[in-house]
Every structure is written in C-alpha cells, then in structure tokens.
C-alpha cells in the first residue's frame, strides 16, 4: 500500500494544475498556490527518495507490454531531484516574468502539469511507461511553446510537434522490434538482452539506432535539432525549461535508460552501432557551437549552445565506459543549472529593458550588475574553466574518451570549449566593457522575484564547482551499477 505513494509526486501536480485551471484564483493566491504545490512536490520527491528507494508499483498491468510500472532507483532519484529543485526556482521566477506575457492561468496549469509528467518519466520503470509520459510531455509542453499565440509561435509549435512525434514514432518502431525479441521492456541495470542470440544482432542494432535517434530528437541531436532554436518564441521560463530541464534532459535521460537499462553496454558494443551515432554527436557538438557564433539574438545563441552541450551528454552516454558516463551525467546536472541561469538572466534583461539582441546590450552590466555577474559566472562554468562545475564534468568526459583510446574526443571537447568561450565571452565584454550609446547609469535590476532564483541557482552552480564530491560519489555509484 505504501508503494502507492510513488504516484503522488506524479499525480499531485496534475491535481494542482487542474485546480489552477478551474478555480480562477486571484493573482496573488494563484502564485502562492503554485509555489506551495511545487515545493510540496519537491518534499514528496525528497521523502520518496529517502524512505523508499527501490519502491515498485504496478499501477495498471494490462498485459506484458501495456504495463504502467513505476520504480524508484538511483537514476530516477537523480533526475527527479534535479527536476523538482529547478522547477521551484522556475516557478518563482515565472510569477514575475509571466506578467508581461499574459494568460498566466493557462501557463501555470500546463507548467505544473509538465512537472508531473517529467517526474513520471523519471520514475517510470519500463520503456512503455516512459514512452507514454514522453508523448504526454510533448502534448503538455506544446501549449507552453505556442503561449503567445502569434503566427510565428504556432509555426514553431507545429514544428515542435512534428519533430517530437516523428521521434516518438521512431521510438515506437524500435520498441516493437525489441518487444518481439524479448517480450519484456522493464528497466534492469546492465540490460535485458543478455541471452539474445547473435542471429538477431541486426535487429537489435536497428532497434537501438532507431530508438537513439528517436529520443535524440528531443535531445536535439543534429540533424534533428531544428525545432529547438525555433521554439525560442516561447516565454523565457518555458524555453529555459525546454532547454535546460524538462524536455531535452528527458531525452537524454531516456537515452541513458535505453542504453544501460535496456540494451546494456555489452550488447551495444557487440552491435557496433555506437560508431555511427558518435559521428552524429560530434557533429552536434561542433555544429551547435559554430552556429551559436552567428546568432545575434541572445536566446537563439543560447539555444544553439544547448545543442552543442547536449552533445557532451550524449557523448558521455555513447562512449560506454564508466568515466564518460559519470561525465555525461554530471554534465546533465551542470548544464541544467548553468543553462537555466543563463536563460533566466536573458529573460531578466528582456523583462526590464526589452532588449533581445547582443548588439543592444552594451553597458548593461552596469545597469543590472547582479544579473550580469551571475551570467558571467555561469558562462565561465559552461566554458569549463576550473574550479567550476563545468570543468568537473568535462574532465570526466575527456578521461572517458581517453580510456577508449581515442585522443580525438578530448580534442573535440577542447575545441568546443574554445568555441563556447568565443560565443559567450563577447556577451560579457559587450555588457561590461562597452559603453552603450545612451547610457543610463541608473541601477535598474529586475524585480526581486526574478533576481532571487537567479542568484540561488548561481550559488548552486558555484557550490557544485567547489564541492563536486557528494554528487560525484552518487553518480559514480549509479555508473558502477551499470558498467
């Protein structure tokens, strides 16, 4: 009976979302309600991860494959805590920010519902549950993407839908093939394919490739990344969520799940499919960085940067050794924290000054010092200069690449770090050292509700950089189980 608690963090946000949609609160009450429900949910997640690791729940078992099954293991604790913590900050941030976007009730209900779905992804114990929530995620984030309702937003929303459903279809394809081979899609560390004969190796490899690409669409794998920069039309909290937490990270999370919990590193090595995928990922890393160089719009620049940074995570997954997996998972956290700060800062600039292009923000560092300092710290972390958290994850990644015996991966990482510096540092120089044409030296920070989350997350970033060990140990534990 106690196991039923597992669905609480998944179900509760839905209830909260419905309440918001139906109840028509006043603004203040709604904000409080949203914040309380998100925080409460964080409490649930923490409670669950402390008190019942290893909890299992077959919510609804129809037959071997249609089996809604939740399970708490270390990886899900890892992902769910990340998501819930960041969600709290985003909620607080968006209370203020969404004032100028309007339609807040709708925003908050879908926003909180998305939290539940993402936690559903985190806690799902088999592929079909994951797939189900994955589809729901698309449906729930879609209204957020097209929030403004303009033609442009609808267009990019359409693109988002098409890409996501295309990806999901590929996943389904892989799932069908896999199911016909194994009759089982439960997540088990080291995979469920241990005793499959070699004659099916082509089918397995086909299914892995197809699923990787399918989930890779959400994780913005080049050449399926086009929806991500387009989705920039969404309000900033949404894009930060899309880019930093919920959507792309769900893709990466799902990839970890299928790679290590369904196929298992051994089997994938046997199929040799990783080679093709590595090429795609390297292209993603480099192309994302290069494209980011060209973007004048700040948000777009960050979006392309996301593509390249996600490439790191995927690289960590696909290299199939412990060190790289640790690096990949660390980067999953670090990138989430960093990117969300960057986006929040951009949003704060947009909110207070209405400026979106890099050319416009000259001198803004003096106008909004706190915001820009946070931006700077995060940029440095993203570039990966020690002792920031970005360094820790990249170090592990590079190590993993070296273990594989290929010096080319560290080289790529370095090149990409250089490119990252090239596209992020100009923003900072522009903001701090250039004098704008019409400099108003008035200090004009964004409202408190926006600044506080930014500062908090930046603190987390710094802390993660200075004291990486607790997380590192935890991640190592996970990786040990898997390889």
């Amino acid at each position, binding site marked *: 009976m106690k196991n039923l608690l597992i669905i609480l963090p998944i179900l509760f946000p839905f209830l909260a979302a419905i309440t918001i949609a139906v109840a028509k609160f006043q603004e203040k009450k709604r904000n409080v309600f949203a914040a309380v429900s998100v925080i409460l949910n964080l409490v649930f997640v923490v409670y669950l991860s402390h008190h019942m690791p290893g909890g299992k729940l077959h919510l*609804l078992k*129809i*037959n071997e*494959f*249609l089996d809604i099954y939740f399970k708490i293991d270390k990886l899900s604790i890892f992902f769910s805590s990340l998501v819930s913590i960041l969600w709290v900050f985003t909620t607080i941030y968006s209370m203020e920010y969404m004032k100028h976007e309007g339609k807040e009730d709708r925003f908050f209900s879908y926003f909180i519902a998305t939290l539940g779905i993402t936690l559903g992804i985190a806690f799902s114990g088999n592929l*079909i549950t994951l*797939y*189900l929530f994955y*589809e729901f995620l698309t449906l729930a984030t*879609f*209204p957020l993407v*097209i929030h403004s*309702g303009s033609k442009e937003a*609808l267009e990019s*929303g*359409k693109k988002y*839908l*098409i890409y996501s*459903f*295309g990806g999901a*279809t*590929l996943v*389904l*394809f892989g799932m*069908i*093939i896999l*199911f*016909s081979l194994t009759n089982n899609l439960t997540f088990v560390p080291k995979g469920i394919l241990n005793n499959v004969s070699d004659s099916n190796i082509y*089918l397995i490899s086909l299914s892995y490739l197809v699923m990787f690409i399918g989930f890779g669409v959400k994780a913005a794998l080049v050449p399926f990344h086009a929806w991500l920069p387009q989705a920039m039309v969404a309000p900033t909290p949404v894009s930060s969520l899309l880019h930093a937490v919920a959507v792309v990270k769900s893709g990466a999370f799902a990839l970890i799940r299928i790679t290590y919990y369904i196929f298992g590193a051994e089997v994938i090595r046997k199929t040799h499919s990783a080679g093709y995928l590595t090429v795609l990922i390297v292209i993603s890393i480099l192309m994302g960085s290069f494209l980011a160089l060209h973007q004048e719009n700040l948000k777009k620049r960050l979006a392309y940067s996301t593509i390249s940074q996600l490439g790191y995570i995927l690289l960590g997954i696909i290299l199939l050794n412990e060190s790289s997996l640790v690096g990949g998972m660390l980067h999953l956290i670090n990138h989430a924290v960093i990117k969300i700060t960057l986006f929040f800062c951009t949003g704060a600039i947009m909110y207070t000054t209405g400026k979106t292009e890099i050319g416009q923000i000259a001198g803004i560092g003096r106008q909004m010092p706190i915001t820009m300092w946070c931006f700077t710290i995060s940029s440095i972390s993203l570039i990966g200069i020690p002792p920031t958290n970005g360094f820790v994850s990249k170090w592990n990644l590079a190590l993993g690449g070296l273990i594989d015996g290929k010096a080319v991966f560290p080289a790529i990482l370095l090149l990409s770090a250089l490119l990252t510096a090239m596209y992020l540092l100009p923003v900072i120089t522009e903001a701090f050292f250039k004098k704008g044409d019409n400099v108003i030296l008035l200090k004009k920070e964004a409202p408190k509700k926006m600044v506080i989350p930014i500062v908090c997350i930046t603190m987390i970033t710094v802390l993660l950089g200075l004291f990486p060990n607790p997380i590192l140990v935890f991640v190592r534990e996970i990786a040990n189980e898997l390889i």
Partner: protein
Amino acid sequence: MLIDSFPLLTVLLLFITASIMPLLKKSNLVKGICIISFIVSFVMYLATLNRVLKTGDYFYRVGHFNAPFGIEFHVGTVECIMGILFTFVAIMVIWNSIYNIHFDIREDKIPLYYLLVNILIASLLGIVFSNDMFNVFVFIEIGNLASCGIVVVKDKKENIKAGMKYLIMSCLGSGLVLMGIAFLYSITGHLNMTYIHNELVKNYIHYPRTILITLGLFTVGLGVKSAMFPLHTWLPDAHSNAPTTSSAILSSLVLKGYILFLIKVLYRVFGIEIIRNFPILNIILVLGCLGMILGSIFAIFQKNLKRVIAYSTVAQMGYIFFAIGLGTELGIIMSIFHIIGHAVTKAALFLCTGAIIQGTGHKNLDELKGVGKEMPYTLGLFFIASLSMIGIPLLPGFVSKWYLALGSIEANKTLLIAVILASSLLNAVYYFPVSINGFFGEENLRGKIYKSKSKSLKELLPIIILVIAMIYIGIDSQSIINLIKTGLV
C-alpha cells in the same frame, strides 16, 4: 432454449419495429421506439454472448429445415461481440441524434429516417450472423438501399449526388458479390458456408482458376463496399455530405459489416489452407498499406472537417485490410479488434464534428479556429478520440498498431512496420491541427463577442459514453483480444 434464438429475434425485432414507425405521427415516439428496440437487442446480445461463452458456438436453424436446405445462423463469440458493438454504437448515435436530428432532416421525414436506420442495422446484424451466402447477399442489398437512403434523406443537391455515386458503386459491388456466390454455387452446389468449405477443401485442386476468379470477385465486390483503397472514391462524398447521424453509422458500422463478411468469406468459406495458394492475401495487404498511407495523405489536403474524418476512415479501413492480409491468426484477431476500436472511436469523432458544425455553422477547418473557446468540452472529446487514432498508448488505436506491428514481424514482413508508423504519423499531421487550432487559434474570435456554444451535458452524454467505452476498450484490450481468440479457435 429460447435464448438460442436471440440473434434471430433481434433482427426480427428491428425489422418489425421499423415497420411500425411510418404509422406513428409523433417523431418523439418514433425516436423512443427506435432506441428501445436497440437497447433490447443490446441486452439480448449480452445474454447470447454469455451463453456462447458458457456452452460454445452453435448453429441456429432458422425455420424448420435443416442446414443444407434451410438457412442457418452461426452464433459464435466474434459474432456476438459484433452484435454488441453494433447495437451499442447504434444506441449512442441514436441517442445523440434525438437532440439534433431536426437540424438535418425535415420533420415529416424523421420516421422514415429511423425506419431506415433500424433496417440498416438489422441487415448488418444479419450479415454478421448469417451462415448462408445468399441470405447474406439479400441482407447486403437491403443494407445497401438503406444506407443510400440515409445519405439522401437530407434532400440537398450534394446529398443526392453523393447518394447516387454511393448507390452505383455499391451496386457494382453487390453485382460482383452475387457473381462470386454464383461461382461458388456452381463449384460446390451449396450456399451454406460450412458446407461450401467442406466441399472446397475436397475439390479445390481441380478448380484453381475458378477459385481465383471467385476470390477476386469477392475481394473487389466487398472492397468497393468497405472502401478498400482504390475503390474508396464514393466514401468521402457520401460520408461527408450525409447527416451527422448517418455519417457516424455509415463510417463506424456499415463498412464493418461488409468487411466482416469478407473475413468470413476468406477464412471461413475458403479457409486459410486454400487462400494460401493464391496471391489474394498479398494483394489485400498491399492495398491495405496503400490505403493507410494515401488515405491519410488525402486527408491532410482536405479543407472540410467532415471530409478529413471521412478520408481518415479510408486510412483506418486500410489497417483492417492490412490485418486481414497478414494471414496469421494474430492478423485476424487484430482486424476484428480494430473493427471494434475504430467503430467506437469514429462514431465519437463524427458526433463531435456534427456538434461542432451545428454549433458554429462552419464546416471548413479555417473557420473552425478558436472553436475550443466556444465549445471546450466537445472539442476536448474530439481531441481524446483523435488521440486514439494517432496511437497514444492505452487507447485502442495504439493497441491495434502495436499488435499489427508484432504481427508483421511474426509474418516476416518487418518492413511493414514502417508503413504502420508512417501512417500513424500522418494521422497526427491531420488530427492535431484540428484540436490545436481549435484550442489555441484565436483569429476567428477576434472582434467577436465570446459566447459559449457548448452543448449541455445531457446532449454530450452519448459522446462521453462512447469515449469512455473507447478508453475501456484500450485499457481492457487484453481480455477483448483473448475473447476474440477463443471465438476463432
């Protein structure tokens, strides 16, 4: 046992109540009688299914003559499920029509309309249960006339045109079917399906060409009637112009009756051992694939909402043909399961569409942007139903796609999975914009005063029940599939 004769009794009941209708003056009374007759039939089928599950299939002798001379009903699990399905969907559709039929049809034609509906469903049930080829043919013709009747009853220019097209195409179909029956009769000397099968198994080696021609005649003839891909041309016109109630019945039930007869012809009359020697299943498979893909592609380019759904029917019938064409046991099971799932879903979709068109007065997709603000519940139901078409897990659409994919792996046709998935993607391409533009597109509302055109709960209830039934079919798919399996063995 009287319970044995329930299938026959329901058919008789529907025909007899139909003949009462023209006598009545009040249209409410007609509606009441119609719905009560269906409810009674529904209960009877439940009882029959219960009995069949307990004691097994049986042949029911109609009248006083034994099998080869007299007419027989074959009452098995699948037939009972179909009976329950048909009557259930008919109840819901008619319940819905009670509130809004007068928008479509002149008051004095309402009794005639319900008469036709009753006759149509009765003839479909006859097709499902009868074990006698010629008897089925007669039912087909009755159903044919009745279904044309419920298309033209609206008395508009387009309706009559569509009805004419429909009539010509289905006469073509029934002519071919009749010729097929004639061929079978001349080979075997029987009209009873069981006896034909026994004779054919003994002699089919001697008549390879005749059997090939016969198979072709049946496939094409029934293909015309059940909108097999290149022969579907009549369907979009007929289904989109007919009154909503008729579209729902035509799309979700009528096609299914014919396709069930095709399944019976292929697997019960000929039997898998015989048709395996002929390429007919592969042809059906290919045509099913084409239908799945091209039906969806045509649907994407339609501007009229009802036509979109009509073309989607073509695509969905493609799935059923695909399942038949697989030629495995799983294939047949899934074709029947898809018949069930699609019937319920499509009925819900058409009823929602009808409510939307009626509420707003617009038919075209462009004009329906923002309709979600005015009729949120109706569009919400539409959305849930369309999710099943797209294939979101737990809903019947997903279940049948999943098993079809497994079936095609089982039949060593792995590549066909790509067809299934492509088709479900295409489904998404034309179903999502309807809901999305409905909920989020607001251009049409600008400058208009917001007013809710939503229907009252009472009027939405049949659609809600249909949607709930659909979700139930999806969630409880395993037991339904097992039930079908027991019926087939």
